[in-house]
């Protein structure tokens, strides 16, 4: 048999690709459940990070169940939606829908007896790929308690700095309701301030596009929660 003929070459490569493809599909299927567990545990750790809780490496699920005392999904009008679990909502897809059609997850985190924080997920675009995070609000529905940001592939040392506490800790204490208006935190060039008096944090020098991405991510993903946060603040006043 001529091993250099076209027919042989084509059949050879087809068989090879089928064999390798089958092997890959089998591995992926066999490992999927374990990978999903890891991804879930990682998501839980990120949610807790927004409320400044660092769970034990082996006890992430247990810690999540202990601190996150309830989770629910609201819509833009602030009404709770039944039969949807907050943890299962894909924030990436939701953030691309029109605000009135979104399912908005809320995680209630009891950091200590009777003190509750409300953790809201955000998702947007950085320079090279997606960025996401979680923002924890105090029970007054306006003050930010903590924030956590992550990214897929921002430039190390520049845009990637958004995942460092040096950036995310700036958010603590900022107000989204100011002078009776709802304005989610702006991210601006260090040393500047927004003209309209909105609460702001300093962006990352050299990471301008990622910083702007964080700003518009907060605008896009927190604005639909306006009604929910308002209701929250009224409850607290009462």
């Amino acid at each position, binding site marked *: 048999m001529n*091993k*250099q003929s076209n027919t*042989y070459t084509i059949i*050879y490569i087809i068989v090879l690709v089928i064999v*390798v493809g089958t092997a890959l599909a089998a*591995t992926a299927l066999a490992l999927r459940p374990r*990978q999903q567990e*890891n991804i879930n545990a990682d998501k839980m750790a990120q949610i807790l990070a927004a409320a400044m809780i660092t769970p034990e490496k082996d006890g992430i699920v247990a810690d999540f169940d202990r601190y996150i005392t309830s989770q629910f999904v609201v819509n833009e009008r602030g009404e709770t939606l039944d039969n949807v679990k907050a943890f299962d909502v894909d924030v990436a897809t939701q953030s691309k829908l029109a605000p009135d059609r979104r399912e908005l997850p809320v995680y209630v985190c009891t950091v200590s007896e009777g003190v509750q924080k409300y953790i809201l997920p955000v998702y947007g675009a950085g320079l090279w790929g997606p960025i996401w995070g979680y923002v924890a609000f105090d029970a007054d529905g306006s003050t930010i308690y903590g924030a956590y940001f992550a990214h897929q592939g921002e430039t190390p040392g520049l845009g990637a700095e958004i995942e460092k506490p040096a950036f995310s800790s700036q958010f603590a204490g900022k107000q989204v309701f100011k002078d009776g208006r709802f304005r989610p935190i702006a991210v601006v060039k260090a040393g500047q301030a927004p003209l309209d008096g909105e609460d702001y944090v300093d962006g990352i020098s050299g990471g301008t596009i990622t910083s702007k991405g964080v700003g518009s991510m907060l605008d896009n993903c927190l604005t639909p929660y306006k009604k929910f946060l308002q209701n929250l603040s009224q409850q607290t006043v009462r």
Partner: protein
Amino acid sequence: MADKIKAKEVLFNPLSKNNPVVVQILGICSVLAVTAKLEPSIVMGVSVIAVLAFANVIISLLRNTIPTNIRIIVQLVVVAGLVVIVDQVLKAYAYDASKQLSVFIGLIITNCILMGRLEAFAMANKPWPSFLDGVGNGIGYAVILVIVGFFRELFGSGTLLGYQVIPQSFYDAGYVNNGLMILPPMALILVACIIWVQRSYNKDLQED
């Protein structure tokens, strides 16, 4: 008898005299990228050993059937398949390490050591020597990675595998972690130091 000596050479030569990183200067890119901490260095080293050993064996088994004009493609398909499997296994069993290594596991495909060994050794040798060659070269690569990772983590973060090694009293006395160690250029300088030490021991490697 002659075979045994050859097997030994095949396995141990890449550790020092024919080290893929410090003698052949291959795979430098990933040495810079993943060695800021010791743990990802070890995981990366083990991954490369596994991929290289199995790719060598598979290509060696297929060597007489592969049509010459698509041999590079066949090698790439085999390596790519193995790398994806390793990536999936890491995602399932070493999630943190796989998050840290991110794209670099996938980039094992482009590691010159792999294509070099497949093309130079596996295409011309039987499976067993090819396996030894793969393991040897993988270990040769991993050793350098671990040495560089060890020094970068020790002096850059004061930890080893995440555990504090440099005692707090040092910091109280004014000791500061060397931030330069964390940055990629330091890996290059460390590799250069290893090359220096190694060449001064092996005179026959010195070039005029």
